[in-house]
């Protein structure tokens, strides 16, 4: 097995008496789509927030490409090669879709202490931003202000922005949530197209999407990893059934 791109070791995060991450360890291998599933409250989003530097863990280490990124800020982690999409979209509502992606391209190209040239008129920024939009199927919606876009479009835009930062590792927090069937299918097709080029940690409730995309699946319950394996292995795992259906959990 190759050296993992992301190695999470003994990650612990408590909110009072609740352990959102309880000594969680997990490896993500370069090039794979690694799905993380589990019942509500299992600590999936908390895991992503800790990986992305938005939430400080109480204990544990996060190694990315062999380096400990635990002390880095979110912005530094992004520049190191991480990107995330948000379950509840985090966009710039007054800007157009194109502006939202342009800003991501601009951020990747270095600092933004340019005070004179019209940023929206720079072909280097615009062409790449338009390309990212067309990848997620928002070709015709570049000039639309985000607050006027549908929820599904906003989710696609999240993805376009994340892609525009050209990440090595993409953390996707329920990219299918709230999407219609056609949008779901096109997002699955898009993510499948990224397979191999970008390593993906996918948190998702839509099991069709998970089984269609994931090379490996890890199951979380109560902040712990109860199983990791291929789709087939996970389907037949006793611990997984217990996590989802057992112990008085309806």
């Amino acid at each position, binding site marked *: 097995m190759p050296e993992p791109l992301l190695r999470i070791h003994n990650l612990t995060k408590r909110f009072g008496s609740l352990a959102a991450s309880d000594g969680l360890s997990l490896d993500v291998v370069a090039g794979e789509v690694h799905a993380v599933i589990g019942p509500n409250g299992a600590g999936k989003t908390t895991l992503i927030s800790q990986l992305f530097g938005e939430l400080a863990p109480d204990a544990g280490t996060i190694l990315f490409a062999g380096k400990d990124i635990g002390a880095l800020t979110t912005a530094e982690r992004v520049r190191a090669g991480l990107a995330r999409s948000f379950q509840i979209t*985090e966009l710039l509502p007054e800007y157009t879709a194109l502006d939202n992606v342009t800003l991501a391209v601009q951020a990747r190209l270095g600092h933004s202490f340019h005070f004179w040239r019209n940023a929206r008129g720079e072909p280097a920024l615009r062409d790449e931003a338009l390309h990212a939009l067309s990848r997620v199927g928002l070709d015709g919606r570049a000039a639309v202000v985000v607050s006027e876009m549908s929820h599904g479009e906003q989710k696609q835009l999240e993805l376009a922005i994340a892609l525009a930062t050209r990440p090595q590792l993409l953390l996707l927090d329920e990219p299918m949530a709230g999407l219609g069937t056609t949008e779901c299918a096109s997002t699955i097709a898009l993510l499948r197209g990224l397979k191999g080029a970008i390593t993906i940690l996918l948190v998702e409730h839509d099991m069709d999407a998970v089984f269609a995309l994931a090379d490996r699946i890890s199951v979380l319950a109560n902040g712990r990893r109860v199983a990791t394996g291929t789709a087939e292995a996970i389907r037949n795992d006793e611990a997984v059934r217990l996590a989802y259906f057992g112990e008085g959990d309806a």
Partner: protein
Amino acid sequence: MLRADVAGATGLSRRHMLWRGAGVAALALFALLLPWAATKAGNPDLISLATRIVIYAIAAASLNLILGYGGLVSFGHAAYFGVGAYAVGILYFHFSNAEPFLGFVPGTNQLLITIPVAVVTSATFALVLGGLSLRTAGLQFIMITLAFAQMVFFLFVSLKYYGGDDGLIVRHRNVLFNLDMTNDTTFYFVCLAVAAIYFFVFWRLAQSRFGLVLGGIRQNERRLAAIGIATYRYKLVAFVIAGAGAGLAGALMANFAKFVSPDLLHWSQSGDLMIMVILGGAATLFGPLIGATMLIGLETVFTGWTEHWQAFLGPFLILIALFTRGGVLSLFKMSASGSHA
């Protein structure tokens, strides 16, 4: 399809730009003809009024960069305005008594020196105070900017050497080339030229990469972090640029009034600047100009009626706040888009 879409987008903004270009041309023409018209109409006081408006428009625009574009509610902007004014006053003080400032910096009455000194001094104050204030956010940020501004206010009150409470008189306006600066029309045009340059630079800045980031900070800082932008540095640079602009306006104000006093740094001045920005339209290029025109204009009209003019101004401001979300400029935009619909 992609091309058509983008062309459609720029086509819309082209029409927008045409309207804006026409508006700016009309505004420029009005500003240029104003002294002539005021003299013709036998009301030369209007020239002084217009000069005051132009100066406050610069100050309000500088606040608009952080308040409107950046969404940073700074309640202490008068401090940088006042520091700029005091830079002119103190340099003049040392020029007239021929005693160097701190024993080695000679005073001067040259506008081409006093303005850069005022700008740099205000920017330095903004760098230090902004550097500390920006470690907080929200309500705390409002309170801490106000607190720092009050500290600067009391600093100048306590500087008895420079007049303390009474302030400093600048007996003659600063010298610029061979212009007759005592002539109110000449001084008006000097201020107008400075404002024109300032607003042009501001326009470029607002649409630059930096401006795009600043607008993003107002809308959602979490999103900016998630694309790899460390927002603190951008906020601080914006704060410093805003302070520098206020310093520029303050330097002009000291020359206009030929007097500087701690009143220029009073918190109510900060409030006036905020009102101008919000009244005219935050995060718009010309909103602060409209806001300054309205506030100073209304003040002038109401003071003509009664000394309790604030009793009239207050309800008026409330009405505007209630009925124009986005300032007076949004009314023009609404009617403009309505006519195209």
